[in-house]
C-alpha cells in the first residue's frame, strides 16, 4: 500500500500518457491526433515535474537574505568561496529541484512551436486533398497511383 502512495503520481501519469498515445494511434483525424500528441506531451511534463518535487520544499525562488552581494546584503563576503561555504552551512530552507523546471519550461514553448508546424501541415493537406481523415487521403493516393499507371 505504501508503494501506491509513493508512486501514485507516476502511476496516474502513466495512465494519462497511454490515453494520449491511444488518441494518437487510434484516431484517423489529423487534428485529433495532434491533440492526443499534445496530451501525451503534457503528461511527460507532469512526470518530470512530479520527480522534481521535494516534500516540504519551496518553489525555487531564493529569499534575499540568502543572496550574497544582492542589493546591499553583502556585508561579509569578499571571496566567492567563503560566501559559498557560509551559505551552504547555514542553509535550512529546502527548495524543490529547479533543473526539471528549466528543461520543461523550454520544452513547453518548443512544443507549441512544433504543434504549430504540425497544424500548418494539416491545413496544407486539407487544401490539397480536401480532407484531414487519413483513410480518405490514402484512398485518394491509391486512386491517383492507379490512374498514373493507366495513363
Amino acid at each position, binding site marked *: 500500500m505504501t508503494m501506491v502512495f509513493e508512486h501514485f503520481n507516476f502511476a496516474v501519469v502513466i495512465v494519462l500518457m497511454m490515453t494520449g498515445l491511444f488518441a494518437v494511434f487510434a484516431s484517423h483525424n489529423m487534428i485529433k491526433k495532434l491533440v492526443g500528441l499534445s496530451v501525451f506531451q503534457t503528461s511527460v511534463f507532469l512526470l518530470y515535474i512530479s520527480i522534481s518535487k521535494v516534500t516540504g520544499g519551496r*518553489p525555487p525562488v531564493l529569499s534575499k537574505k540568502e543572496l550574497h552581494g544582492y542589493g546591499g546584503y553583502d556585508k561579509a563576503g569578499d571571496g566567492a568561496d567563503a560566501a559559498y561555504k557560509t551559505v551552504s552551512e547555514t542553509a535550512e530552507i529546502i527548495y524543490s529541484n529547479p533543473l526539471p523546471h528549466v528543461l520543461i*519550461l523550454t520544452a513547453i514553448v518548443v512544443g507549441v512551436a512544433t504543434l504549430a508546424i504540425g497544424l500548418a501541415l494539416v491545413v496544407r493537406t486539407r487544401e490539397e486533398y480536401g*480532407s484531414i481523415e487519413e483513410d480518405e487521403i490514402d484512398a485518394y493516393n491509391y486512386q491517383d497511383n492507379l490512374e498514373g499507371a493507366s495513363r
Partner: protein
Amino acid sequence: MKRARKRARANKMGRSENQHIILRVVAKLLIPLIAVYGLYVHFHGDYGPGGGFQAGVIFASSIILYALIFGLDEAKRVVPPSWIRVIMTLGGLVFGGTGVATWLLGGEYLNYTMFAPDSTHAAGQHWGIFAVEIGVLLTVTSVILAIFYAFGSRGGSRRPNNAPNLSDEDKS
C-alpha cells in the same frame, strides 16, 4: 422604442460596429494592461516567476486580442508582417551575439562574467541574463505572432477543384 428601432437598423446593417461596442471598449482597456503585464513579467523574471518565454507569449497575446477584436488587417497595420520577419531573426542574433561578445571580451561562449569581471555582486551575469532574455522575448513574441498571422489570414476552407469526389468515383 427608440432603442428597438436602433437595434433593428443595426441588424439591417449586418455586423455593424455597434454590436461590438462592449468588446471594443473592454479590449481598449485590457490591451495596454496585458502588454504592460508582459513587460513586467519579462523584467521581473529575475526576481520571481517569469522570463522571456512567458513574457513573449503574453505580449503576443495582447496583439492577438487586438486582432480578434479589431480584425487582422488592423493588427497588421499595427505590427506589419515585415517587422515580424526582422524581429524574429533579430532575437536569435541578440542571443547569439551575446555569446560572441563574451568571446571577444576574452571568455568562453556565453560566459557572462566577462561583462563585468571585477564585480562582487555578479553584475556581469545580470547583464548577460538581461541581454539573453531580450533575445528570447523578441523571438518568441514574433514567432507567436507569425503563427497567428499565418493561420488567421489563410482564407476559408475551400475545397480544391482537383480534389476527388470519392463516392462518385468509387461507383464508376
